[in-house]
């Protein structure tokens, strides 16, 4: 906890402790912890000398911030109009079935977080499934399993197959 406080302090100091850089600070805290733990929000509030609720208001307003721990991989299914007509709801159902979670949740083993998005601006590729920022276009029910399996498998050295392939 003390260590965390120092970490947050370093981030806050980087922005000069200014009240208007709350969003930037929270973004950095989130990239450090992958989510916003309660005690880091308290640390940000006390260091910026702002009421905690104000920090919470910002943290809950933006979809980019998460107050719940997130999985190792983020799976995002596009449900925009173009993807929708090309069968995105079925893709989402398949992903839900494969991972056993509802959108917005994380699997119990903390491996996957499932999210939906309303458009990624890559409609020609639809339906799109994004895993950790990598776009998998023209998704079909069969391909969902293949893509997810690539991230499910862990190499002996602890690295995932996908990481090895792309490097």
């Amino acid at each position, binding site marked *: 906890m003390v260590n965390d406080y120092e970490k947050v302090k370093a981030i806050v100091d980087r922005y000069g402790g200014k009240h208007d850089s709350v969003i930037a600070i929270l973004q950095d805290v989130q990239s450090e912890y992958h989510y916003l733990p309660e005690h880091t929000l308290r640390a940000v509030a006390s260091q910026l000398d*702002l009421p905690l609720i104000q920090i*919470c*208001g910002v943290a*809950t307003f933006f979809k980019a911030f998460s107050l719940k721990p997130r999985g190792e991989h983020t799976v995002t299914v596009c449900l925009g109009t173009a993807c929708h007509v090309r069968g995105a709801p079925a893709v989402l159902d398949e992903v839900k079935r494969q991972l056993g979670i509802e959108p917005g949740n994380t699997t119990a083993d903390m491996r996957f977080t499932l999210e939906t998005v309303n458009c990624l601006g890559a409609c020609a590729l639809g339906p799109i499934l994004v895993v950790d920022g990598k776009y998998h276009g023209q998704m079909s029910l069969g391909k969902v399993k293949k893509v997810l399996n690539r991230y499910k498998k862990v190499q002996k050295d602890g690295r995932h197959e996908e990481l090895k392939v792309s490097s």
Partner: protein
Amino acid sequence: MIELTIDGIKAKVEEGTTVLEAAREMGIIIPTLCYHPGLSPYGACRVCMVEVVKGDHSSLEASCTLPVEQGQVILTNSEKVTRARKLIVELLLSSCPNSKTLQDMAANMGINKVRFKIKDRGCILCGRCVRYCKEQMKSGGIGFVGRGTSRRVATAFDVTPEECRNCGGCEWICPVCEKACMADSLIDGLCGGCQNLAPVETCLVCTGCSESVSPQGHKVY
């Protein structure tokens, strides 16, 4: 000094006042919910809507946040305004039907049906409690969390914060909590008690109506 016309009456007011303040000074009634003289204007409830005439067209603006301008022409009771206000009160009632302030407002405006699905959330998100806590108590214990339909007034992590002094001001200033409508059943989203047009001293339907009931219902603004 700035010269403007409200409902055809010319007036001179100080620079920096809002249209709402200018109108109230002139004795013109504009209903408000989120406005409070002791708090900063917020413009959340939109009930104080007025029509600003600009040449051959006009626009609707919330008067509580609209600063006066030279030569401004304001209408506070035009058909456009009353129609817009009715719609807004209906929308507010659909999310908070148990507020006597709102029910009275509806009765005064002649609303006889709420056209929207009633989803009682007990809050109209006017932000009066939030501003009271921040500006008057200098505390900041409560605030808005979430966004869109999940937006609500809450404390951080739903625990009583250190900043809270248990002053109860948030409840006191709330336009919903201050007067709850005690009517048993709502018909089309309205309690109907205050629409009682019979010339009676006290209204029999909702118990909160015992004060200053005229044959046309309450005048609460």
